[in-house]
């Protein structure tokens, strides 16, 4: 099947799924915030996905949810012992961790090596901190949502953040995506053209960090990997051309989130997990269609 036809079908299916999902939520008097939290979280990650692949930052992207896991635990400890918002502590601590990982890659440490060290450190420290929190504070529900995600329990702060970061990610990708993809395709010529590579890399690290860390409670750190990496992989299999693949990746994210939410509400299942499952089904379908 031609990629342009698949693209048109995807636009059509996505629009239909969004309309049905919203109609079902409103019709059954569920909070519409659920829809916005999951769809915008998914959109934020899906829009960055193509840039992650082209800039060869899969290892950083895979490390970032682990940074979010550790930061979320440390955020609880900091907010209880020092005061202030858990969410703000989590974002600040998480961003520091992501910048450390990004700096290692920027300075030439092999991405596989830096990701291995970083994931090992953040996972073990994260588990240690969360065990400490579980045994000393009454934060059981929060910790479950950090691990498996629950957009239905999101606070107003997180709902607003999801919408803002989702829109910001889409604007960011359409504003500087071409430059980042060009850097990924020909870094030497990008330097000769006068692009400040470090600035574009820093902006991408920042967007990856803000997305994964800020949305850890609504998506869950386990499924953030799926949301970040699968839409881009599907678009890379199906699409030809940068603009089309970015749009396709976003459409895949919106589609999986809206159908996922619909199914999860109907069958009382975990919304993030169902959306992640739909992404996997779309990935396998694309792979079979492309004969891979």
């Amino acid at each position: 099947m031609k990629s342009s036809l698949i693209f048109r079908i995807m636009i059509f299916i996505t629009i239909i799924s969004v309309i049905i999902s919203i109609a079902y939520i409103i019709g059954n008097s569920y909070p519409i915030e659920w829809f916005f939290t999951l769809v915008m979280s998914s959109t934020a990650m899906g829009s960055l996905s193509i840039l992650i692949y082209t800039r060869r930052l899969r290892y950083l992207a895979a490390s970032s949810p682990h940074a979010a896991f550790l930061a979320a635990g440390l955020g609880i400890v900091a907010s209880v012992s020092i005061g202030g918002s858990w969410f703000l502590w989590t974002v600040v601590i998480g961003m520091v961790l992501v910048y450390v990982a990004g700096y290692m890659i920027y300075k030439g440490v092999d991405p596989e090596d830096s990701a291995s060290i970083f994931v090992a450190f953040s996972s073990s420290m994260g588990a240690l901190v969360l065990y400490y929190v579980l045994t000393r504070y009454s934060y059981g529900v929060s910790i479950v949502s950090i691990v498996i995600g629950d957009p239905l329990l999101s606070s107003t702060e997180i709902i607003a953040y999801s919408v803002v970061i989702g829109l910001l990610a889409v604007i960011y990708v359409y504003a500087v995506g071409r430059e980042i993809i060009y850097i990924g395709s020909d870094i030497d010529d990008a330097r000769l053209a006068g692009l400040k590579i470090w600035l574009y890399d820093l902006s991408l690290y920042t967007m990856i960090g803000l997305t994964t860390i800020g949305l850890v409670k609504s998506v869950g750190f386990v499924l953030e990997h799926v949301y970040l990496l699968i839409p881009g992989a599907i678009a890379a299999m199906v699409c030809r051309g940068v603009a089309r693949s970015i749009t396709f990746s976003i459409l895949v994210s919106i589609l999986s989130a809206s159908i996922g939410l619909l199914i999860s509400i109907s069958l009382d299942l975990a919304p993030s997990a169902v959306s992640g499952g739909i992404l996997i089904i779309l990935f396998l379908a694309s792979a079979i269609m492309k004969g891979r």
Partner: protein
Amino acid sequence: MVNVHGETMHIEIRDLTVKYKDITALENIDLKIEGPGLIQVLGPNGAGKSTLLRSIAGLVKPQKGCICINGKDTTANPRLAGRIIGYVAQRPEVSKYSTITVRELLCYSHMIRRQKWPRPPCREVPRGIDAIIHEDILDRRLTELSGGQLMKTYIARSLMPGPGILLLDEPLGPMDPASKLEFADIISMLSKERLVLVTSHDPIILLEYTDKILLLNKKVIAYGSPREVLREEVLSKAYGRGFREVGYHIHLFDSHY
């Protein structure tokens, strides 16, 4: 020296030394190169051919020395060097997940050089590349191209800013024999109005178009006409026993592949 458009093409390298940690890639290079014309850069593996091209492009920071292009100091300044030169790396790497097409690569190369922000969209491929790449590959992804097509695409891309100097790092490496001959003609055409530096492990294909040969082995071993450089006593200084003369042909035993 100027071309038909009145553009100067002059590279001056003074006392250039480049090291990667403890390994010396180039040592005390002093050289003046003028164009237009085709210069082949020869030398064994690790002789510093790629490093020399990258240094001229401003992509490498030397330990000492400087590089002036057309009278401007462009040492370790790719932004300034990029206004005058085009550069194609040895075997450009493309992520297997990259969806960028040939048309987009050429358009984006043109687009990112515009200083206005936000940069305007670029839908039309700039003119003048049809002699190098066929129109039927414009909408293919880079990942769908053969090694030769990919190299031609990157060379077409390097011509986008209209450079007076072109640096090509082993452009013939990934090509089949028929493509090499076709491509030799293209390089010949490009070198009529530009100064073109080409690194190579096989000087014969481009020999009839070559104005000068630069023989390197961390230092400049020889710089002169093919007749002056391609002689046993000169080549042996760079290659040791790593070459054979068979009739009029020279075989360099220095496979990269």
